[in-house]
């Protein structure tokens, strides 16, 4: 499995910092411009109120991005090694949890679950959060009428494997050549959660219209 965006830690660190910088700089730039323009021009009270509201909205966006960066730190912390999670049940609940969002937007979430439950050694709360964040992230880029599918099965060497296939073009990370792959703080959060649980998470390939992902976790 290729683990994007790069194999060596220095490159990975640069990409991570670049992504965080991008996430934080967008709302901050908007905030700065709004306030700058509000001060430079003669404005009516109504226009000033609109500027203040815009500044407040961007401050909130900035706050939420900072909280996401903090969550990245939490995701890397090792969980309780004795905790086990029924992956089949967890994915079933995720499907129910997300179905209204998909339905409301004319998209489909499909899950292929094994008949026999698969128990993985992982913290259920963190794993639920990570999968929710991942599915929600893919949903943002899923065209209307298209499908996102997750398939769970028993893989090799005592690992549970989740294969994900999603329509839509995801933004790629700031990497070069063959290493170009989708990358975001959300994807990094998911990767860290799986790695902290002793598993793997990575982007496999993109055929121009669909992206393919694979995650593994050690079975009990």
């Amino acid at each position, binding site marked *: 499995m290729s683990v994007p965006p790069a194999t060596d830690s220095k490159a990975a660190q640069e990409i991570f910092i670049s992504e965080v910088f991008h996430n934080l700089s967008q709302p901050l730039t908007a905030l700065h411009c709004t306030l700058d323009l509000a001060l430079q021009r003669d404005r009516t009270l109504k226009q000033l109120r609109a500027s203040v509201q815009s500044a407040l909205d961007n401050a909130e966006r900035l706050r939420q991005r900072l909280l996401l960066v903090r969550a990245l730190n939490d995701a890397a912390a090792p969980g309780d090694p004795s905790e086990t999670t029924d992956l089949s049940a967890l994915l079933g*609940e995720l499907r129910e949890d997300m179905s209204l969002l998909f339905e409301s937007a004319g998209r489909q979430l499909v899950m292929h679950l094994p008949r026999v439950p698969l128990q993985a050694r992982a913290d259920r709360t963190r794993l639920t959060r990570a999968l*929710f964040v991942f599915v929600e992230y893919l949903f943002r880029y899923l065209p209307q009428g298209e499908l996102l599918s997750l398939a769970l099965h028993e893989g090799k060497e005592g690992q549970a494997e989740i294969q994900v296939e999603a329509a839509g073009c995801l933004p790629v990370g700031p990497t070069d050549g063959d290493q170009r792959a989708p990358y975001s703080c959300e994807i990094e959060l998911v990767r860290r959660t799986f790695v902290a649980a002793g598993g793997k998470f990575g982007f496999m390939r993109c055929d121009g219209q669909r992206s393919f992902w694979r995650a593994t976790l050690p079975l009990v």
Partner: protein
Amino acid sequence: MRILVVEDDAPLASFIRKGLEAEHYAVDVAGDGELARRMALESDYDLMVLDLNLPKLDGIAVLNSVRPRKPSLPVLVLTARSRIEDRVQSLDSGADDCLIKPFSFTELAARVRALLRRGPRTVETVLRVADLELDRVARRVARAGRPVELTSKEFALLEYLMRNTGRRVTRAMIVEHVWNLSFDTSTNIVDVYINYLRKKIDSEHTPHLIHTVRGVGYELSCHSGVLV
């Protein structure tokens, strides 16, 4: 209502004080842990807003010292600490709620109101608002005596709104308590779920119970109209 704000960052303390005073609370500010402990023990406050990183005595030590002698004092902890363990430790030490920096004043104010309105802790099995009933144990919901089928997430969302009846809850609060995420989601999932819940709870009944609070979030109450 009298609130003790414990925050060593003077501009932030001033901002919180002014904001809470604008909401008609009486506010005292302590800039270090020792002063905070003394003020909390010697005066009667309705709520304490407590930063964890403090000079002289840190927030956890303040909590450990104050909580045994003021068991019913609501404490809202503010923290910029990144580890989950720090937040867990503050709640285990007796904090009633924990707000992560950076925060918006709207959310701080909403949490302050929620803590101040919280009566003695209840373990009610059935929550009721007007003719809406939610049985937490049997996992049943009924409006005007007619059963309402909800998914587990809709149930959790309705339970959270009913537990906060009459209080404005932000989208971030809903995401944190119902979806268990410490940051807001990138989609409109809260609004989607609220809309579905409205169809099931409110569409065929009066009064409508789920209200949009412009620029804030939602409120479940018997009021009518859009809240601003």
